[in-house]
């Protein structure tokens, strides 16, 4: 553990951070999943009206990220997550300076942060999280330095434009802090007021134009699954690493005797754990809280008197391997994630076709819109007045086998194309001739205009 007190450790950590954050962009590029397509489209044409989503709707989105990227979308999308990732590590280090004196603990925390699946996910590609997380770290870093704490106000004023949920979670954590420390209360009130005001103005404008945001009642019934909701290793997109969590538990237990002295940390942690069950975005904040505890747990184990040095070495080695494995596993998952070259080719093909609405699964909506065509449904359903009706109609289309069922819906939404791919077939149908697949295959009204790499595009003739 003495290695972590050397002067060059911080440089090694920075180099490691660069290496980790470069893996996915170099192997895969910035276009991972659906978010970069959505963000790039908004960044290229910022407007309050989105012509392509849900066949045209009021653009009630968190505009912060697209607006930051809009000066040079392609360049900033490639470079900004990486640069802000490094800056976030420095900011996190600055926050740790306010709470931790032990250099070993600080550097170990930074190492665990860099290797955590959540951090790798956030800063490896242009998603909706990298800017809000960076801003939260910047604001928190300023807030905890008494001399600069007022500088965090402008950040909190713009933060609701990036993510209202992360802003709220961050404010609650800071509330716990001010309650515990009994200081910075004025600054906190100013932050709260600033964020509330800007949030109210921004979302007030959206509500004014769209009405109240409606959740969809037909969403797939999600079971309450503790492990697959919280832990990356058990299936969530960017959750906690299981080994980090185990270490953090040991760290918390080792500090449990001083629980009243660390009330702020325990309260914030408990709050974030509960919220993370319901809103996945807060997992990135939870990860930031878990990492120092994990470092504490690791140091506790390393300094403990063991009965066998073999057990000690192997236990610590298993933890390190587990943490590294979770990180590598996240990089691998991002590198292998959709869309692949076949989907990109299909998007390109679609962009060359004449204008029309494309019907597909909602998870393909962002890709369809990225091709310049209108989609019938996508995943940005909040604030869309007829979202629920569209989802039900889509359900009918998936399972319909007769013209009588299909044509009224096709006409109502002016659908011209249908996008089907292998993954979608797996999600929606059991057989090759089930529901809509049967109609597409045997009806003369549809022509297959594209069929490559498992992606089919059908045109209504």
């Amino acid at each position, binding site marked *: 553990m003495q290695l972590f007190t050397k002067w060059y450790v911080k440089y090694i950590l920075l180099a490691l951070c660069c290496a980790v954050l470069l893996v996915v962009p170099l192997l895969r590029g910035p276009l991972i999943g659906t978010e970069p397509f959505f963000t790039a489209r908004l960044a290229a044409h910022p407007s309050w009206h989105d012509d392509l989503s849900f066949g045209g709707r009021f653009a009630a989105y968190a505009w912060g990220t697209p607006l930051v990227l809009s000066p040079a979308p392609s360049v900033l999308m490639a470079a900004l997550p990486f640069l802000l990732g490094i800056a976030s590590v420095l900011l996190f280090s600055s926050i740790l300076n306010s709470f931790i004196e032990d250099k070993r603990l600080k550097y170990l925390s930074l190492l665990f942060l860099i290797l955590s699946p959540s951090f790798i996910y956030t800063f490896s590609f242009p998603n909706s999280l990298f800017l809000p997380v960076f801003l939260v770290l910047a604001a928190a870093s300023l807030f905890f330095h008494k001399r600069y704490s007022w500088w965090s106000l402008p950040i909190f004023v713009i933060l609701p434009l990036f993510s209202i949920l992360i802003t709220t979670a961050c404010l609650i954590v800071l509330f716990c802090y001010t309650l515990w420390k009994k200081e910075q209360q004025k600054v906190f009130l100013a932050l709260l007021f600033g964020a509330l005001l800007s949030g109210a103005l921004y979302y007030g404008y959206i509500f004014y134009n769209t009405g109240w945001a409606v959740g969809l009642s037909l969403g797939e019934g999600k079971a309450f*699954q503790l*492990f*697959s909701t919280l832990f990356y*290793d*058990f*299936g969530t997109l960017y959750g906690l690493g*299981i*080994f980090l969590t*185990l270490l953090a538990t040991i760290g918390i237990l080792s500090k449990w005797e001083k629980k009243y002295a660390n009330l702020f940390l325990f309260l914030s942690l408990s709050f974030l754990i509960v919220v993370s069950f319901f809103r996945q975005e807060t997992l990135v904040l939870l990860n930031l809280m878990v990492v120092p505890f994990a470092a504490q747990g690791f140091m506790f184990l390393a300094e403990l008197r*063991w*009965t*066998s040095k*073999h*057990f*000690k070495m*192997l*236990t610590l080695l*298993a*933890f390190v*391997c*587990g943490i590294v*494995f*979770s990180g590598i*596993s996240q990089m691998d*998952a991002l590198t292998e994630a959709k869309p692949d070259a076949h989907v990109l080719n299909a998007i390109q093909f679609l962009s060359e076709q004449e204008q029309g609405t494309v019907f597909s699964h909602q998870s393909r909506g962002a890709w369809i819109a990225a091709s310049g065509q209108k989609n019938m449904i996508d995943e940005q359903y909040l604030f869309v007045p007829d979202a629920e009706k569209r989802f039900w109609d889509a359900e009918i289309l998936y399972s319909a086998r007769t013209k009588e069922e299909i044509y009224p819906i096709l006409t109502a939404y002016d659908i011209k194309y249908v996008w089907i791919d292998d993954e979608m077939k797996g999600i929606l149908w059991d057989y090759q001739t089930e529901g809509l697949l049967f109609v597409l295959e045997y009806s003369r009204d549809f022509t297959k205009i594209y069929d490559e790499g498992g992606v089919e595009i059908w045109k209504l003739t």
Partner: protein
Amino acid sequence: MKLRKETWTLLFIFFVAFGFHLAFLFQVPFFSSDESYFHLRHSQYITEHFSPIVYDSLSYGGNVILNTHILHYFLGILDIFLPEILVYKILPALFASSIVFVIYLLAKKVTENEYAALFGALLAAFVPSFLSVTINQISTTTLFVPLFLFVLYGLLTLEKQRMLFLFLSLILVLLEPLNLLLLFTLLMFIVLSLAESHAIQKNEMEAIGLFTLLFLLINLIFFKQLYLTQGLATVWQNLPLEIYGNLFQNFDLFQTIAIIGIVPLILGVLGLLVYKKHDRTITLFQSVLLADFTLLLLRLIPFEEGVLFLAIVLCVTAAISIEKIVAYIRLTKAARYKSLLMATLVIVALVSLIIPSVVIARDVVREGVTVSEIEAMEWIRDNTPEDSVVAGNVYEGNLIIAIAQRANIIDTQFFYAEDRILDVETIFTTESLVKATQALRKYGADYLYVSKKSQDLYVVSELPYIKGESCFEEVFRNDYAIVYKMVC
């Protein structure tokens, strides 16, 4: 080195157990389970190529095989130097028989009485449930059970056998990464120790912690993709619900008692009841039983395997009964007949175990895989095109791949396989020619293999849609199986 009388007796018990295995396994030139052929094929592949089959083009007509291949590497490497019969037939029998040593050690640890420990070892040599899954078979259970017990022994003697625990627990996790029995046992051990206010020794906590970490790490490394997509449901191994029913629901009390053995059951339960000393050894065995029941309730362990571990723990606790009975007899006027009484008890125990063991072993060898079945498979291998696909039931898939050397439509490698169990059931149970041919065509089947095993499994005497139809041509028939060619 001069061996003591007890050591000679233990060796004698071991050789009797080993001889019992040999007596049955040399009755037939082949193996007695479908699973054996899976292990045989993969081990032989490693012998030839030094690397495992990762993508099997014959399983399901193409399927990713998710296996740590520890057993296959072990057998495959030995196959390079040793004769096949020694590696695949005799070595598994040797492993299975080695259970007597570890039961002896554990029973001695509990009773501190060598004779009682020898009695426990003798019972373990003939546990019917263990014989039914090990005799004339290549199976991970053959290795898993003795290793599991050795790991428990290592935990009880951590101060002296630290490396034994470490090394064997690592092998155990690698052998069956999704087997939760040891993990649950160790966790139950902590819970019971806390409940009974026993101080858990520091080295035990360290060992249990390390095992848990290794278990997690190895599971996440090997099954990462499955955990990411299925979450914790991975522990159910993507087993189809219908198979699940077969594995877990056919509970028959009398049959269960028969495969445990009436003497181990009575003496074992008695041993648990009369053992008053609450120490860590007995707590550990209680933990195994609790873990076993929990896994059975959660359906995380096949019923047969659950019963097997129950029977083995009862062999150890039966030694406690014997020790108590001997101690009690010594206090009574019957003390002078002690030897006679003990001899009678041993004979009764042996008879009550050996009879069901012989019956089970004979059934396994005669009915596990039959000569006629092998004949049918060899006919398919010699008389059908190499790229043909053969439809059989789920428990014949590995035989079709290994002996007939043709692609199957289903076998027991479920991890990445699509769920075809209902279609296979349709093929064997439907009366409709259209439905049957639809299901067969869906998987590109060219031949339909209808065996007595399928008839028993699906409770049908013959396939109605074949009679009088010109879609299926009978190309092979013997007393056990018929092979039909699809001609329409």
